[in-house]
């Protein structure tokens, strides 16, 4: 992992020194070892603080919408980020020429909350971790009280366990060795499990997850695909999603936000990682993505410039519902 970080630093420094880009988006150490922060490097001499490890949990592509359109942006991207960027480019949200993709093969993002629990660190314990080290199947946490050796499999974020595309696509350069596409768990496992439930069970499951929602919109802000300057949730005439934390408003929020990701979601799981209330959402977007694959042979980010499924239609569209 350290070698990879060195390679990223070198490339970032080169891009800035040679004026290829105005800014490189990557990660740096935050105040807490388990919480690296997204970082924005504008000077070659400043890249020494750039880090990369399995705790880098943000989808950096979400920051593209927050940069000025004139900026040439270099961005560290893993499989999911690169596929999200492909979709953003196909939607004309960004100009591919203004982006420089530094591809990184991904071994999966570690869920710091799972790590805290696995290590038995108690509430707030994650903040006691002074340094981390990833060695193959193991993750080592060092605290003042001692060392904790965790199995990587047990602390990976859920979406990463099902990831079918850990290697980045459409990059300008790819560093490190390919991770390979063997997902640890079946890609559609979550959808299959949900569909195996009865309609009433599915409904209750959805209601239960949505109940905790506090409408903080962290999921929306963490998502690279949510870049609308006016979100549907703020429309008042009509009020599609009630402003209150009632089942009505919250159900509408989750259903419509997921639906707006149809054929766009790269299954990165940043939404779930951002959620302060541990709400599950990827079971919705996974279902929509699988439907796009089965109905229209569309795979998110699989091909450069592929038109989005909801922006295309043909007279040959299957007539399951035309009667």
């Amino acid at each position, binding site marked *: 992992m350290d070698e990879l970080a060195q390679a990223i630093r070198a490339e970032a420094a080169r891009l800035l020194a040679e004026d290829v880009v105005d800014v490189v988006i990557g990660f740096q150490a935050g105040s807490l070892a388990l919480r690296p922060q997204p970082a924005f490097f504008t000077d070659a001499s400043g890249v020494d603080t750039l880090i990369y490890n399995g705790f880098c949990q943000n989808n950096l592509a979400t920051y593209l919408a927050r940069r000025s359109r004139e900026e040439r942006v270099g961005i560290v991207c893993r499989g999911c980020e690169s596929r999200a960027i492909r979709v953003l480019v196909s939607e004309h949200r960004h100009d591919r020429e203004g982006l420089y993709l530094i591809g990184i093969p991904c071994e999966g993002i570690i869920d710091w909350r799972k790590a805290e629990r696995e290590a038995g660190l108690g509430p707030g314990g994650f903040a006691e971790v002074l340094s981390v080290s990833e060695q193959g199947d193991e993750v080592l946490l060092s605290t003042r009280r001692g060392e904790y050796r965790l199995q990587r499999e047990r602390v990976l974020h859920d979406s990463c366990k099902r990831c079918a595309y850990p290697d980045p696509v459409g990059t300008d350069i790819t560093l490190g060795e390919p991770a390979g596409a063997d997902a640890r768990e079946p890609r559609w496992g979550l959808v299959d499990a*949900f*569909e195996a439930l009865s*309609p*009433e*069970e*599915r*409904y*209750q499951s*959805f209601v239960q997850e949505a109940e905790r929602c506090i409408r903080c919109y962290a999921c929306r802000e963490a998502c690279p695909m949510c870049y609308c300057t006016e979100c*549907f949730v703020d429309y008042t005439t*009509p009020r*599609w999603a*009630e402003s209150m934390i*009632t*089942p*009505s408003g919250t*159900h*509408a929020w989750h*259903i*419509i936000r*997921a*639906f707006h990701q*149809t054929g766009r979601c790269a299954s990165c799981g940043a939404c779930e990682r951002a959620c302060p209330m541990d709400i599950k959402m990827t079971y*919705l977007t996974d*279902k*929509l993505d699988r*439907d*796009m694959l089965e*109905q*229209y042979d569309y795979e998110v980010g699989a091909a450069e410039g592929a038109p989005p*499924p*909801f922006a295309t*239609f*043909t*007279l040959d*569209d299957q*007539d*399951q*519902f*035309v*009667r």
Partner: protein
Amino acid sequence: MTDAWTPRIVVFQCQFALFSAAEQEWMDTQLPPHIKLIKVPCSGRISPMFLLNAIQGGVDGVLINGCVPGKCHFKEGNLAAHRRLDEFRRLLTYLGMEQDRVRFAWIDVGERGRIRRELAGFEATLRELGESRRLVTRVPLAV
């Protein structure tokens, strides 16, 4: 069989989809009180949010009427509607709604009386299904 309960239906009707002015007049003036008509310029105007609003408002069934592929007054509006609304119905079904509560009636202008047959059939289906109970979380819509 009692008539204690009548299913409440909302129809989103494409203004170009019907056979004749007479048929449209029937829709505009003769619909029974438990069926609410909302006309749209094209089925492509129908956003999934319309459907969700209706379902959350306790409507028992939503009928979506548009033109058959190739016959859209705006060329491709109905095709866009196809994909979006079909998938949205899948999503709502995934979350527990009975699939038959959302019905599509893509009607060719030559199909005289089709819309009335669809409505009758839909009402019969909804009587079998019973009142909508899942996702009903808004103040009831006045239908």
